[in-house]
């Protein structure tokens, strides 16, 4: 199966890129192994407890994507800068995220994983303001 990687750099709701990425990924799953890398402000997307008044909850959208098989990773440096910390013991306990502030299925990881995702991809889509 071919691999599609989507990179995002913006937080939810400031643009429609998070929602567009979800639609692209949903459409591609099954035909592509889908990876999504969250960089810079995009690390806010998987935060638990979002309650947008006028938009679809971006965190829930991404968590559902992960359930369907998308590999979704967030940059560790960007996440730490914004208060999201990776805790190894969470994954050891079987939690699907290594960050207690994130929806299940999305993990904080090294930036080197972006390089790995890109190098193994057949298609790459970059969405950024």
């Amino acid at each position, binding site marked *: 199966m071919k691999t599609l990687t989507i990179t995002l750099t913006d937080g939810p709701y400031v643009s429609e890129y998070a929602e567009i990425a979800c639609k692209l990924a949903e459409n591609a799953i099954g035909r592509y192994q889908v990876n999504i890398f969250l960089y810079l402000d995009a690390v806010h997307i998987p935060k638990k407890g979002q309650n947008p008044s006028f938009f679809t909850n971006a965190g829930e959208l991404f968590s559902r994507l992960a359930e369907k098989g998308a590999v979704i990773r967030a940059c560790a440096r960007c996440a730490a800068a914004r208060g999201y910390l990776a805790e190894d013991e969470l994954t050891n306990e079987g939690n699907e995220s290594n960050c207690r502030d994130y929806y299940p299925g999305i993990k904080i990881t090294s930036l*080197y994983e*972006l*390089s790995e995702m*890109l190098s193994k991809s*057949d298609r*790459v889509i970059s969405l*950024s303001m």
Partner: protein
Amino acid sequence: MESVFYLLDTAPYGSEKAFGALNAAVVSLNRMSVTLGLYGDGVYLAAAGQNSRKLGVPNLADILYAYGELKVTVHEPSLVKRGLFGETLIETLELTDEVDFFEAMENSDCVILL
């Protein structure tokens, strides 16, 4: 993918974007051929003599000097528009005209916008 082009059109220090672009480009060096393209306000990163000490943030020029193997191409028309063309620039960078800049983007397997 064997090559990646990171496109930076934001000035350094005002936001995290330039730092983020440099980090992403550097970590990609071990797997792919990497080009960092400076366009628009991104060309301010090419200026020599940067001193970010009072800002309390890393000197981004030091990262460029530290990773000499990173290919950095600077969009020359953007430099001209900003009055930087005659200024002293970091010597390891490559100046390219409009055609060559976009050709480098087209020739890369993927383009990442930051």
